């Protein structure tokens, strides 16, 4: 490569001031004595001048440059406004969504903690069978009451017919005591049935008989004639046998 070729390779950067001091001095010295390189140099400088022409790549309308800053500021303001609107809307939407989610979670939690609602019990009976069942229950109550009354009636009659079998003048009432205890158990089972309207009027007499049975169940197996007489007097006084017969005829 000749000296001119090397210098011409540096002329663009020399014109730009981008060479180091040594190269700059070398190019300057060469240009002073080389006509061809000076011509090349002149063309490069001219190209640079044209490239720095302020009218190059510039539209004619100056109005554009005067209005552009305000125009862009307006667009920025509108962008910010829309962005703020979107932000506010998104905040509102997020808040609403959060509230909905919170409400759903709360409802879900309550439903989880709450006892499960009783499952709809299948009807044991059809509505039309209730009257039939009431009749069955009434019949059962009448029979149970009647059996209780019959038991009490028989016990009271037997008690009156008791013979002296113990030592001396005492009367053996062991069987009556045992029957009294059985009737007390029967009465306890009967209490639920005495709420049925058809037999409700028997409740008073049944309770009186129960108190008598309690007294009898606590008696000794061999009672004195006095004690036995007191029980018979009570039966007579309260007309228990007569009332039993009347009631039985009423409920049967």
């Amino acid at each position: 490569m000749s000296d001119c070729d090397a210098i011409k390779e540096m002329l663009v950067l020399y014109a730009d001031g981008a060479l180091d001091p040594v190269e700059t001095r070398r190019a300057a010295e060469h240009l002073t004595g080389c006509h061809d390189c000076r011509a090349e140099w002149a063309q490069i400088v001219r190209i640079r001048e044209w490239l720095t022409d302020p009218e190059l790549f510039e539209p004619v309308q100056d109005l554009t440059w005067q209005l552009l800053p305000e125009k862009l500021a307006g667009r920025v303001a509108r962008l910010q406004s829309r962005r703020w609107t979107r932000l506010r809307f998104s905040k509102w939407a997020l808040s609403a969504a959060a509230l909905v989610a919170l409400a759903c979670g709360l409802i879900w939690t309550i439903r989880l903690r709450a006892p499960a609602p009783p499952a709809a019990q299948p009807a044991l009976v059809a509505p039309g069978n209730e009257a039939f069942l009431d009749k069955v229950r009434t019949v059962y109550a009448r029979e149970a009451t009647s059996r209780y009354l019959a038991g009490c009636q028989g016990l009271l009659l037997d008690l009156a017919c008791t013979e002296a079998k113990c030592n001396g003048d005492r009367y053996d009432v062991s069987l009556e005591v045992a029957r009294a205890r059985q009737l007390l158990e029967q009465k306890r089972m009967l209490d639920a049935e005495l709420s049925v309207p058809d037999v409700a009027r028997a409740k008073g007499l049944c309770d009186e008989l129960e108190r008598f049975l309690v007294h009898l169940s606590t008696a000794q197996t061999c009672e004195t004639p006095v004690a036995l007489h007191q029980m018979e007097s009570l039966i007579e006084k309260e007309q228990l046998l007569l009332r039993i017969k009347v009631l039985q005829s009423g409920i049967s």
Partner: protein
Amino acid sequence: MEQVRRGDMHAYQELVRRYQKKVFRVISTYVRDPEDAVEVLQDTLLKVYTARSTWEGGFSFAGWLYRIAINASIDRCRKSDRGQTSSLEEMMETQLHQSATVGPPRDPLDKLRDRERRRLLEGAVRRLPQRQREVVSLRFFGDLKLEEIAAVLGCPLGTVKSNLHKAVIGLKGMLLAQKGVLNYE
């Protein structure tokens, strides 16, 4: 730029005034149609504001701005055929036709020569390879130093110098081929 980053609109308008013409000229090396170039310019300057928080203070603001402008210009050229350059002959004919429709200048011959020379040079710049065109536009229209150009383009300083040399020599060759344009003055 710090004031712009804080949302100061007056500072932003001042920044637009300072850079709008330079950025437009850089964009015009890619986008031939002036109206399209103005649109790209507006998009670029808007993006400067909306993306202001992404600018790293240690980096040249002008370099960052021109990088946005170049990217936007390339995108526009890809989307539109109007960004393509035409031959110098076609541009010459266009400019001659346009000059015939413009009002009478004070010095008609000189004005015509200047206008023709500018349009020929603009066409020649647009015909440069992309990297050479970037270096020329950033150096002469963006007023960046060679070191700043290297930072913007992400290449060594030597590459920038080499491309600048090739670009100027290439422009000289293209203009010399056009009826001795270099001898106008």
